[in-house]
């Protein structure tokens, strides 16, 4: 099987894209071309970064402008997107769809057109490769939080998408699990787009986008963007900004 | 498509979970199983069609052998027992409750409470009493006498269904799919 490697032909391109949710403009006039291998999107709670992730993934469509992934509209070309984009959601319990480990892992492969038996064989092989053959057939409810997180990542990796969108990938995990996960991410050939509010997660990426109130506040290498972001967060921490009502 | 499917599945799971909760005893000592409240909420929150489908999916899992009815009951036996009529009536009750919710412009509490009375008592009792009459070989009026024992508890439940629907509407504007103008496909 061809290993999925990011290149500029599969770039994510936003042209004047905007999103309005329940009457509020969550994202405004986004024009971006994302083709680097490691990209970070940073912002505060409510800055619109989750909406941006869902927009790029085609889970929501823009009200204005357009989004293209490898030249296709991700909200329309759902089948084609399976090979282009994978998403690791923040909460495993929102991502795991099936009661058992192998059903969960096989689902994406079957959706991509593999037969049930081929998908099951591939899953068995994958679990054996990771020394987890005994996980076959067990209930996902018996897995720990870290194990469920691992399961979600493998379900995405098995589909071998060229880009993986990561939504706060380290939230709620203990330090050993975080380190192990970071090592796994570093070894992946795919393009990774990480969404986070934690600057520490993004050291060493190729490009950082700072999102503020639905707009790009800064865009550049991490050395340039992250210190400014941290200084601003410390300044905001000194104010009682939480008293303001968002809407 | 996906949203309809997941709403139906999650509410079927919710009905099951409410059956696992130990029954709540009201101050008067009337036992209330949360499960039938779940059936009503399927209608009043999801609307007629999706609400009825959620209840059907739940009953399907019961028939397949999962002990999801309150008290850990389940399997095929419950569908030939004396309460079978109530089970058959559940999806229709949810449908009617949802229909009342969608077709009236009453405020959420009154619409949901009326829906629960018409669907969860009126319609459900027609099915339940017919079922009891059939299995217990009694006339409809004799079976109705048996059914009357549950009426006070069910009236309280209708009020609770109204209060819960109102609480959901207040906590999350737009959460009531039964009240959205254009439900997503």
């Amino acid at each position, binding site marked *: 099987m061809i290993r999925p490697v990011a290149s500029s032909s599969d770039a994510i391109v936003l042209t004047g894209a905007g999103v309005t949710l329940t009457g509020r403009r969550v994202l405004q006039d986004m024009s971006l071309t994302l083709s680097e291998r490691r990209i970070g999107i940073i912002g505060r709670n409510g800055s619109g970064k989750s909406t941006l992730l869902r927009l790029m993934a085609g*889970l929501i469509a823009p009200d204005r402008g357009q989004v293209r992934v490898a030249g296709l509209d991700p909200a329309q070309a*759902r089948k084609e997107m*399976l090979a282009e*984009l994978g*998403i690791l*959601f923040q909460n495993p319990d*929102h*991502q795991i*769809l*099936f*009661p058992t480990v192998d*059903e969960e892992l096989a689902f994406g492969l079957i*959706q991509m057109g593999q037969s049930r038996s081929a998908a099951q064989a591939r899953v068995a092989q994958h679990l054996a490769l990771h020394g987890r053959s005994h996980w076959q057939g067990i*209930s996902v*409810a018996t897995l720990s939080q870290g194990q469920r997180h691992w399961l979600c990542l493998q*379900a995405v990796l098995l589909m071998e998408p060229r880009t993986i969108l990561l939504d706060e990938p380290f939230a709620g995990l203990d330090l050993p699990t975080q380190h192990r996960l970071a090592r796994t991410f570093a070894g992946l050939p795919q393009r990774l787009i990480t969404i986070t509010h934690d600057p520490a997660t993004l050291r060493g990426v190729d490009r950082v986008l700072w999102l503020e109130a639905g707009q790009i506040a800064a865009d550049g290498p991490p050395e340039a963007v992250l210190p400014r972001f941290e200084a601003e967060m410390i300044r905001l921490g000194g104010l009682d900004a939480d008293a303001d009502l968002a809407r | *498509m*996906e*949203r309809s*499917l*997941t*709403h139906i*599945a*999650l*509410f*079927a*799971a*919710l009905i*099951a*979970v*409410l059956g*696992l909760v130990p029954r*709540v005893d009201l101050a008067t000592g009337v036992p*209330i199983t949360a499960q039938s409240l*779940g059936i009503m909420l399927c209608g009043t*929150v999801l609307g007629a069609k999706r609400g009825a489908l959620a209840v059907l*999916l*739940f009953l399907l*899992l019961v028939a*397949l*052998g*999962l*002990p*999801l009815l309150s008290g850990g*009951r389940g*399997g*095929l*036996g419950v*569908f*030939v*027992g004396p309460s079978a009529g109530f089970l058959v009536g559940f999806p229709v009750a949810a449908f009617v409750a949802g229909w009342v919710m969608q077709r009236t412009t009453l405020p959420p509490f009154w619409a949901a409470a009326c829906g629960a009375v018409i669907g969860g008592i009126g319609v459900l009792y027609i099915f339940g009493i017919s079922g009891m009459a059939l*299995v*217990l*070989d009694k006339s409809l009026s004799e079976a109705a006498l*048996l059914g009357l024992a549950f009426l006070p508890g069910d009236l309280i439940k209708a009020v*609770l269904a109204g209060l*819960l629907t109102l609480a*959901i509407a207040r*906590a999350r504007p737009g*959460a009531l799919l039964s009240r959205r103008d254009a439900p997503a496909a």
Partner: protein
Amino acid sequence: MLTLTSPVETALHRLRAGPKLAVLAGFTFALFWISAPLWLGFALVAVGGLYLRGGVQFFRHGVAMLRPLWPFVAVVGLWHLWTEDLAAGGVIVLRMLAAVAAANLVTMTTRLSDMIAVLERLARPLAPVLPPRRLALAIALVIRFIPVLTERMAHLAQAWRARSGRRPGWRLIAPAALAALDDAEQVANALRARGGAG
């Protein structure tokens, strides 16, 4: 997920689910046409005999599954004591017990996966309205989310108790329903991200 399938392996476990269900349907249908107490008694004894072939423990489990019927047996008994027509009462009770016991027997001796397979076969004519894959997906989602929502309810109950001396009771149902609505939105996204409900 806990099912009602008995862990005690009986000969009936090895029979195929489809024929078992067909026999059950015929048996139940016949019960409602028979009104001779002797034949109904014979039917109940026959079902009891099938339970006993699985051993005493299996038989006891079967009896325990009939327990929810006792209020109805009591009501019918009292009623017919009052109308002085005990034979008619006996017919009703025997028929009810035999029908429910036979149905429970099939449930206790058939695995969930086998039942789902029969269901998928039965639902095949509905394929234009209800694709079998979608039905299977819906069933899997319910089984998957029952423990998730149960845990959520337990957390909500703890959060309630941490801040209140009173028992939460029915008030927990509203946050539980909101949790189900939120989860439904998230899971719909996860499903769409991996190719939809197609």
